[in-house]
């Protein structure tokens, strides 16, 4: 409730923070004499635009809060934010570890765990989900590796074989 009341202000602050980081990087752009305008000019134009817009957003949000805040409607759907956080954590772990573990090991583990994160507790079937994860990963691997010649990372399996 509190978050949604201040949401417009947070948006302005988020973009202002992004703009500050963006502007801080502009002096690091190397100057060349190849073109009439250098490679920093266009980013400077974007930075100016971002700065004006984020300040305008903060101004509008503060004005709205002063007038009593925006109308906040209670959301109908119940949400469990832990699910989103776990999904993100799992996705990060999956892409970071795929190179070392290999597609054929990391993908079944990812699919299995992600199904468990999203599945209602009363519908959990460990064996069924395990089989789905292994079969789906195997089919994707065969299609892409042998059908489309995409060299998906083998990871651990490569070290075992060679």
């Amino acid at each position, binding site marked *: 409730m509190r978050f949604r009341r201040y949401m417009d202000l947070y948006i302005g602050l988020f973009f202002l923070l992004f703009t500050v980081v963006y502007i801080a990087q502009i002096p690091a752009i190397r100057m060349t004499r190849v073109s009439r305008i250098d490679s920093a000019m266009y980013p400077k134009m974007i930075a100016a635009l971002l700065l004006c817009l984020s300040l305008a957003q903060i101004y509008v949000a503060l004005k709205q809060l002063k007038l009593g805040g925006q109308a906040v409607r209670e959301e109908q759907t119940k949400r469990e934010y832990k699910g989103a956080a776990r999904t993100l954590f799992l996705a990060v772990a999956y892409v970071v570890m795929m190179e070392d573990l290999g597609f054929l090991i990391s993908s079944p583990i990812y699919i299995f765990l992600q199904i468990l994160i999203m599945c209602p507790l009363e519908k959990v079937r460990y064996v069924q989900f395990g089989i789905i994860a292994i079969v789906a990963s195997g089919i994707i691997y065969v299609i*892409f590796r042998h059908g489309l010649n*995409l060299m998906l990372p083998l990871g651990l399996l490569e070290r075992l074989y060679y």
Partner: protein
Amino acid sequence: MLASLFAGSIEVLHPMCLFLIMTGVAVGIVFGSIPGLTATMAIALFLPVSYQFSPLEGIALLISLYIGGVSGGLLSAILLNMPGTPSSVATCFDGYPLTQRGEGFKALGVGVFFSFMGTLISILVMIFVAPGLAKMALNFGHFEYFSIAVFALTLIASLAGKSLIKGLLAGAFGMACATVGMAPIDGVIRFTFGSQQLSAGLDLLPVLIGMFALSEIMSSAETSRIEDDTSIQNIDLKNVKGFGFSIAEFKSQITNMFRSAAIGIGIGILPGIGGSTSNLVAYSVAKNQSKTPEKFGTGIIDGVVATETANNATVGGAMIPLLTLGIPGDMTTAMLLGGLMIHGLTPGPLLFVEQPLFVSGVFVAMILANCAMLFQEFFGLRFFIRMLQTPKHILLPIIFVLCVVGAFGLNSRMFDSIIVVAFGCVGYLFLKLKLPVAPFIMGFILGPMVEIYLRRGLMQSKGDYLPFLTEPISGAFLLITLVSVILTVRKNIRSAHGGAGTQ
């Protein structure tokens, strides 16, 4: 013309050629419908395969992959809110809300039918007025491209949703993200924070997959354990006939269809822009021209008609400079150019003189591939909808794996998959902060075009800004841009006063 088309059709109506067209369209649809895989990838993979057939058979296969691939993107956009290709981003905006209302069949039917119409109109334009249009496109230089890109950027305002400032912020954020990596012209490295991997910049595909697919999975993970119904959507298939829409609805969309087809063809002809822009431009123009713009984004067929007609019309548009001048407009047509060249054919005006039968054959093959696309997608509609009855806790993780594989396949490096996750977080943040995604995508696609043509134009004019205004086509577009900005600001001030008045 009709006599040469008849002769060309005799060449194409060969069982082997028909088989290749059917197969190409089917494979293209599969590639298009899976987020992360695109028509370009399908053509790249089948390019060596096409070599073993006759030139016409080989090109028919590649063109069928192209047509199927562009159209296939609508399936995942409408059913899962994940655009299968960059060309179907705007299809999500109204297609998915229709699915959520239980009208997924209608949304798919509209998408498939108007994809067919878009391609058909563009093929007819290509057959009858291709050389004239191509010559006109040749008059476009750096000044004109810059002005067109600036004009297209102003359309962000109409995609902004309720708050213009938030929409513009999202658009500027997209433009800023697109500056990461190597700068155009002088190749200076920018905003990479010392990362070697970021030097190549951010590819559109991983950014799109992250913004739409991962954020959708994260959002589903918030509710999937709580809601009783685990399937993605329940769509009633009883009493559904034909494509799911009435003749009256078709008649109401005729203007929208021709306008969007014209936008698609126009953008397709201009090198370097393509379907990823045409669908967003057509959507925003349809919204601006509509009597009920407030209904856009809530699930009306007008949005699906505009985007699907435009992105498919881009196919025919992109083929015009390729065949008449030998200029590929984008990556996909560059692959097709490669396909032609490995068969010893050089596209250009001479191709029409030396190989008239081949050119007519290509036209007929495109028409047949378009019919095959309509046929296969129409009979597959019920199958695609049944896919939604798979519990989402099983379907979505498998789709994410496909997304990661697709991103990896772009450059065979895991870094692109990491970009998917990074922009998944951005997409989720946009969702939670109720920021519009369309302006971000528009800024990300058009931002680099604005910079590159501004710098090239200034190099050509030796630092003089005046030619941007004095060149007739460029000046006209900048004038239209100015009028568009004034109208948008006036509309916003009026609606702000109206809103204040009613409060």
